[in-house]
């Protein structure tokens, strides 16, 4: 059974419009004009228990708005949401015992307190008895390797350590679903990798369903089996990661260092990306021409060095964003 069910969800925002300059400001006091921004437009999807799902889209696509509606923060205009069969608006308190949230851009921890004190506070918020909180802290300490800084005030922690604590704090009440809104924003590659390992471990150990938004392709590629792409408030793709790659990976990038110059200008299925004399970078459309064919055109005897690669997932996704604009 689906753990999250979203049907026909819509949300509009009323935004005040203002003409430029002081004159515009004065005019807007007496005759305010408003614009309706359709942040989320009739979206529907289900999430199964134990899934790690990537919910991605360009800035302003409606990701955060959708997450905020699922976590009771915003009231939807239309449509229904069921999270663990609770309605986020009617059953806010009941639902919040079942979910955890981490907003990478917003801090939930008290910065002057140590992670340990923070965990105690969060435990109390979820009505856990002290003995259970202590046990849980011990467990999270092991899982997220917090020993080194569990007694250092949060404001003295590095961003990476802080995010680890934020995620740990969101898990104190063993939520069934964890909403992660850009958890790796601003982190260095090593720390990012660390966080990803922790997220995976958590999914495996506690069977936590994870709903993740991120602009980091690494997060999506390494963590998620399913991806939902939202653009302009609408879902433009809802598919498995494998399918996404399979359907969109019909192009290969061939980079070659040549002995002699070669002209591929009018060849069908070949798109020249870069031509610097003896160094050539082309894109081969495998639906029109096989890679082997393209290599024949280059003439194997003429090649000093060659590299054949897939189009980076990042490009695929940004293409999807652009095409559906």
């Amino acid at each position: 059974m689906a753990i999250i069910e979203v049907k026909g969800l819509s949300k509009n925002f009323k935004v005040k419009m203002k003409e430029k300059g002081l004159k515009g400001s004065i005019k807007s006091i007496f005759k305010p004009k408003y614009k309706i921004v359709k942040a989320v437009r009739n979206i529907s999807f289900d999430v199964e228990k134990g899934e790690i799902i990537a919910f991605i889209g360009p800035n302003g696509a409606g990701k955060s708005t959708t997450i905020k509606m699922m976590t009771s923060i915003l009231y939807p205009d239309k449509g229904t949401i069921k999270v663990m069969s609770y309605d986020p608006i009617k059953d806010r308190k009941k639902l919040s015992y079942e979910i955890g949230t981490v907003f990478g851009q917003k801090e939930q921890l008290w910065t002057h307190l140590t992670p340990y004190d923070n965990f105690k506070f969060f435990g109390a918020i979820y009505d856990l008895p002290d003995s259970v909180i202590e046990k849980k802290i011990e467990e999270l300490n092991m899982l997220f390797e917090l020993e080194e800084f569990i007694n250092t005030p949060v404001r003295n922690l590095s961003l990476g350590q802080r995010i680890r604590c934020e995620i740990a704090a969101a898990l104190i009440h063993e939520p069934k679903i964890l909403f992660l809104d850009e958890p790796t924003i601003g982190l260095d590659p090593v720390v990012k990798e660390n966080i990803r390992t922790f997220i995976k471990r958590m999914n495996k150990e506690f069977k936590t369903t994870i709903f993740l938004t991120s602009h980091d392709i690494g997060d999506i590629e390494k963590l998620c089996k399913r991806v939902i792409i939202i653009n302009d408030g609408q879902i433009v793709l809802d598919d498995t990661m494998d399918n996404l790659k399979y359907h969109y990976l019909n192009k290969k990038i061939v980079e070659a260092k040549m002995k002699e110059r070669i002209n591929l200008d009018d060849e069908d299925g070949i798109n020249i990306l870069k031509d610097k004399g003896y160094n050539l970078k082309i894109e081969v459309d495998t639906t029109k021409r096989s890679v082997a064919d393209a290599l024949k055109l280059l003439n194997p005897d003429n090649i000093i060095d060659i590299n054949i690669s897939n189009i980076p997932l990042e490009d695929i996704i940004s293409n999807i964003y652009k095409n559906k604009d």
Partner: protein
Amino acid sequence: MLTAAKNQLKVTKLSIKYAVMREMLNKTTFVSNIIFMILNNACMIIQWIVLFSLKDNVGGYTFQQILLLWGMSSGVYGVAHFFFDKAFSLANTINSGKLDAYIVQPKNVLLSAITSNVKVSAIGDIIFAFVMYFIYGFNITTFILYILFLITGGLILVAVSIIFNSLSFWFNNTDMVSDTVNSLMVNFSTYPEGIFKGITKILLFTIIPVGIANYIPIKIITEFNIYLFIINISVCLLLILISFIIFYKGLKKYSSSNLMSARI
């Protein structure tokens, strides 16, 4: 229901405790904030000493009653700002989208939001309130009443602030309106009731209920009156109820925000 209330109280207590702990990080500032607030209030009394050397009563108040009024008004302010300081900047919390963190927790959003900060100098106000009371004269009945009225007055101040700050859910940047009402509440509360007439007096018992929060208690402590007592308690409860209703009505309009922020 009872367990839920107990748990809510536990979290509120913890929240205030942690907020005090934060303020205590810097011992010197902590202590000097309290002492200077007491001195600040005490300085204001000087003008009244001068006034009363010229006149026997001002606006129907004796000097003893003025001391009690000052004690009451700073105590009411102290209780409100020590326990619920964030109620006075709620509009900012709403506009900057900082309510998110409280909405995702299984506790009362309003209570969590307004108890997340304490104003240390308010301790000075509360101490000053008791010093003034003891100068006025101790008596066990009036002492209990005095404490009760500090609480009801503080809650009235908080409720009025919540009501005006909650307007931010509908109209942006209403900080100015709520700040003005808050400072009017404080300013009027330090003058004797008798000097106000007509519309001002009506306002003081309605929109800016200083009359209910400060003047009525002074009357009751000077001479007990059951009707005034009932008015004080019931207006306090009514305002709390209205503030919750307006806040939760507004919460439906809450639009959050994506501002980068930290909980400091």
